[in-house]
């Protein structure tokens, strides 16, 4: 039971990170209707930028951890958001009205570019950082000595996710930009006729998605203490799986799917085998799609004749 509770905590934390990346996928899919294959690599870039900013701030002699964290958060979000914006402008905007496979291949190409750019720029080796946020709470100690731990970093990941989700939900449901985004999701042509700047709205979607991915990258860096150039691919497929599982295009679905993938992966590793955890996650995706082809919270797709 205790072991189960501990795995539940670990799974929820991992799921929060996947969920943050999945939101970026689901937003872009909802509005532009394309799979942004490079999104996982944007997450990786976010992790790298956070790492480098940490390094600079520490060598400048800063010691106040909250200040460091805030600066790193803002810098990595800003620069990664600019990456998202640039990628949309270069690789996706010229292809927006092209046939379906073209933007997908362009996105796959962009993903290769980002992975190898990061490898060329920062080397292929894993980059570790020393733990910044240490300590935690012991929730429960059973007689046989098993301890349920809730570390501070875990609390931070979950709280950051909840806060970002709240901000994001407010953004989509209450602001002008959110209204534009929902309008573009419904019908781009009609939205444009009614005075919505479609280009700008799509750009902003990529910017917000990349900023959220940067936060996920920072959380990953803090939680696992390392980044490497290849981590975007696997995390990207997992997050996309999460988005599809939750019903692509649905924001709560993305978060739910992220949590589901995080929990499945953690429990599978804990009770069965670590080696096959990714196989389990992907198999469950296939099984869910057989019985619910539009995911958990997705709307049924209307077949147009």
């Amino acid at each position: 039971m205790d072991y189960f509770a501990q795995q539940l905590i670990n799974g929820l934390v991992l799921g929060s990170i996947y969920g943050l990346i999945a939101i970026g996928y689901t937003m872009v899919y909802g509005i532009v209707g394309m799979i942004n294959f490079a999104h996982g690599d944007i997450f990786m870039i976010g992790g790298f930028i956070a790492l480098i900013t940490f390094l600079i701030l520490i060598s400048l002699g800063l010691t106040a951890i909250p200040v460091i964290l805030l600066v790193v958060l803002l810098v990595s979000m800003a620069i990664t958001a600019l990456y998202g914006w640039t990628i949309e402008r270069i690789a996706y905007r010229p292809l927006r009205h092209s046939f379906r496979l073209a933007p997908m291949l362009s996105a796959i190409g962009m993903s290769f570019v980002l992975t190898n750019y990061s490898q060329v720029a920062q080397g292929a080796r894993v980059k570790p950082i020393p733990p910044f946020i240490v300590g935690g709470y012991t929730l429960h100690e059973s007689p046989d000595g098993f301890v349920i731990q809730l570390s501070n970093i875990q609390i931070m990941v979950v709280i950051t996710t909840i806060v970002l989700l709240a901000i994001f939900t407010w953004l989509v449901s209450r602001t002008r930009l959110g209204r534009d985004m929902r309008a573009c999701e419904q019908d781009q042509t009609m939205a444009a006729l009614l005075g919505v700047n479609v280009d700008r709205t799509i750009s902003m979607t990529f910017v917000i998605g990349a900023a959220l991915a940067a936060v996920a990258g920072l959380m990953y860096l803090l939680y696992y203490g390392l980044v490497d150039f290849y981590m975007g691919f696997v995390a990207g497929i997992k997050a996309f799986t999460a988005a599809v599982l939750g019903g692509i295009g649905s924001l709560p679905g993305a978060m739910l799917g992220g949590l589901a993938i995080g929990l499945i992966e953690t429990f599978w590793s804990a009770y069965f085998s670590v080696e096959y955890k990714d196989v389990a996650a992907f198999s469950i995706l296939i099984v869910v799609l057989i019985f619910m082809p539009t995911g958990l919270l997705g709307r049924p797709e209307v077949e147009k004749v």
Partner: protein
Amino acid sequence: MTVNPHKTTKTSRTAGIPFLLKTAFINALIALVLFSLMIGIRTEAGSDGQLTYWTRFGDLASLVAAVFGGSIVIELMRQWIGPTGAEKLVPASVQSGMSFVGRYLAPALLIFTLLVPVIFYDQRYILDLAILVLTYVMLGWGLNVVVGLAGLLDLGYVAFYAVGAYSYALLATNFGWSFWVCLPLAGILAAFWGMLLGFPVLRLRGDYLAIVTLAFGEIIRLVIINWQDLTGGPNGVSGIPRPSFFGIPLDNSDDGLAAKLGIEYSPTHRIVFLFYLILALALLTNWVTIRLRRLPIGRAWEALREDEVACRALGINTTTTKLTAFATGAMFGGFAGAFFATRQGFISPESFTFQESALVLAIVVLGGMGSQLGVALAALTMIGGFELFRSLETYRMLVFGMAMVLIMIWRPRGIIGHRSPTVYLTKAHAISSDLVKEGHG
């Protein structure tokens, strides 16, 4: 509504130097922010696990300067060629001329390919490269059945390649079966896996299908890595027997083909044999595809690509149609895999990554989906181009990715952007591929 992204208005076109400098300056500024940390600062983990860093402001400055200069050049070209740019680079007359050339290009290319081992007999490197190109031509033609004809987007094609390679490797090393027995078995097993993948995805469309096939490809690769007892895990399978000339080994022994024919033994014999083997397999793929296109099943594939709902309304069994497309494509992937295993003599999971799937898909799309000649030309371009960058190992994938993006922007419909219809009443009119719905799954 169509929004032209490169719409250059009259004002900006006549704005001249101030406009150019402003655009270039903004681009350079963006580049400066993008590259500031990733290029300007280099991190490395030291021997004690402590991260160190040093600055590379020279590299950063030259990159930003390159972006500044590059955006001036691009903007000048855009003003010079015009807003649509790319299409004007290839005038309509040349494009229609290309279709005329296309009629004679295919036979010419085939004759040249047949003569490659004769012309380049002494150049082992060229023969190896030709074998590699032909392997990708075959893979491209195999995937073309699934993506180009049936319109099912498959991002995990390399899984069938892996199934074929491992089927042959394991059967040959464990039971000592010959290549000619294992080849059909590898194809059948891969086709079986294709059907297995087909069943769950029957109800899925478009991007869902893409992600499930991607997941399936990853599952196969992960199982190969982790099932160490059977597959050898990350170490792979080695000592895979070389193919024989229908039972006669191609080696230096007294039973070898060279000794039996009474000619002097040369290691090139084996390479030439492999060359003709993969050429035959590729041509078989091509022939079967062209024949199948004319049969009811091939027409059903193409109808399915165009409109699934209409297909069902007309009484086409979409289940069997999709399954046969997956199975046929997978079978050719399996053949190619078996060939790959016997050529290399060693296989490991590293050869079957998503990157390979993307490469084959890029070949199919770049070639112009459904166009057999286009796929062959694309394989030649991509694999040949890839080979040019062999010495720049680290930059190779970077350039490949950029090329993929640029090609998609320039020619999203591929090299052969038109096609002749499969069935016609009196006279075949080539149609633009803009009229064909592809990849809707």
